[in-house]
């Protein structure tokens, strides 16, 4: 469903993505690992249309979306939960969630309200805070809101950039199981995670990025078995 070929992206003079190619199948949960600065966020941002690639192709369901603007990309069913959350801190929690559904907004709000209710079930900590300013939430609650907002757009391709940041262990597990459920419903998911252990538990396949390119790829069991990767991305505690 998503296929990227020979992608190159610059930040100013820095080449953040270099000749990168990847494939994601329908209903797959793809985990991307990589050290700080490997270019993971840049990759997701480029797919979402935030950055314009200098080379290469991004094909989503037979459409070339490279260089399209975010609003066009979103309309095709791609949603990104960004690294820095980017919530609307002066708007209420509810408005934030509703805006997540901006591109599928209709006069009839009942369907959206239903979806909001579902999100509240997923994140009980947000319950009762619908009218609060999003900016007054704690860091973790904001992260939940950002994920919730991403889900509100009912994407067919959901990209999450380190969603576990700032979340309590219980909640991280909760999110991972949500992802598995979504995947079962046919949503394709690209998950960038540093919380490797949790991510690998749910991954179908794994990519490892280094310096803007992909150095390893395989199924999650392959990767867990690879001792080099283990050392680099799972830490010695895991090896022991």
């Amino acid at each position, binding site marked *: 469903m998503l296929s990227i070929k020979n992608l190159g*992206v*610059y*930040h*100013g*003079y820095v080449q953040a993505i270099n000749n990168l190619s990847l494939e994601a199948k329908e209903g797959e949960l793809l985990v991307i690992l990589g050290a700080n600065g490997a270019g993971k966020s840049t990759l997701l941002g480029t797919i979402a*249309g*935030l*950055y*314009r690639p*200098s080379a290469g192709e991004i094909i989503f369901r037979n459409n070339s979306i490279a260089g399209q*603007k*975010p609003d066009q990309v979103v309309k095709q069913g791609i949603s990104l939960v960004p690294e820095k959350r980017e919530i609307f801190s002066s708007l209420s929690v509810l408005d934030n969630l509703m805006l997540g559904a901006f591109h599928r907004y209709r006069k009839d709000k009942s369907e959206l309200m239903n979806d909001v209710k579902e999100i509240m079930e997923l994140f009980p900590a947000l319950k009762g805070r619908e009218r609060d300013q999003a900016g007054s939430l704690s860091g973790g609650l904001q992260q939940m809101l950002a994920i919730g907002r991403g889900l509100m757009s009912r994407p067919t391709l959901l990209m999450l950039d380190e969603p576990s940041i700032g979340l309590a262990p219980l909640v991280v597990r909760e999110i991972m199981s949500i992802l598995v459920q979504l995947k079962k419903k046919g949503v394709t998911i690209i998950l960038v995670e540093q919380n490797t252990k949790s991510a690998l538990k749910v991954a179908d396949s794994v990519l490892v990025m280094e310096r803007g390119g992909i150095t390893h790829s395989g199924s999650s069991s392959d990767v867990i078995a690879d001792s080099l990767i283990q050392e680099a991305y799972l830490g010695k505690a895991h090896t022991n």
Partner: protein
Amino acid sequence: MHLKNHKGLILLLFLLVIPLKLDSNYLYSTLVIIAIYSIVVQGLGILMGYAGQVSFGHAAFFGLGGYTAAILTTRFHWPTLLALLAAAILPGIIAAIIGRQTLKLRELYLALATLGFGILVHIIFNEGGELTGGPSGMSGIPNLTIGTISFDNDQKFYLLVWFMLLIILVGIYNLVHSRTGRALCSIRESEYAAENAGVDCARLKLQAFIFSALLAGLAGGLYTFYVTFISPSPFSFHTSVQFVLMAVIGGLGTFWGPLLGAVVVVSLNELLREIVPLLIPGAGGEYQIIIYGIILVGLMIFQPKGLSSIGRYFRQPPKKELKPEG
């Protein structure tokens, strides 16, 4: 930034500019005006570019300096040098008084408060009756005299203001490359984090505000002694906007920005006055204004970080630049 070079550059500027021998009083006076404005913008550059506090009221400090010098010399017959000193100090004191409260405001609200202050001071100049000469202003201001030297012609005045400007440049160079300069920047970037590093933000912002008011006042005093006539009109909101313009056009938070901004804005005006009639015969001031506005807009579009960032192009390899989508 390659900081080491800058001191050398200032020295070079010093050697080049100070002994400049021109046989044109016009050029001298253009350079005098550039230096006077540049002194104001140096202070404003510290306040806006480093501490990140916008002021739309610096014409008021400029004017307060000007009027202090004018009133002290004509009404109270102070020696001119002393009056010039007072012209710097009084705006500083006023900045200290109003700054504490005002600087609590953020961004546009601060801009607005300083704008209000500027308008208020302008009204005071107009309503000052005998003391300020009201809207008609005051004439008969003596020439500046230091010791036995009277700065009574363009060339002498030019030497004086550029000498002062260069001293200020060296001082500002030191300032921005000290812990104080860094602390000012950190206030601009995040007050929470700056406080947490031990910076007393309120106090440092106030110091920067006072400093900029002192420089504006000094420049105002110099202006008065140069023109020897003063009226409220050069100290209106319009002038405050011009100062901000110079600071931004030159490049905020850069060392050469303020000087560059003053040079470009003043000489653009002068050049347009010369060139426009050549390009469009019989053209009046209208075309000058239109073109001036267009150039300003163009500069901000193509050089949003100010002119002094042009240097960047020479230091780094030109590669394809990534443009955020609009």
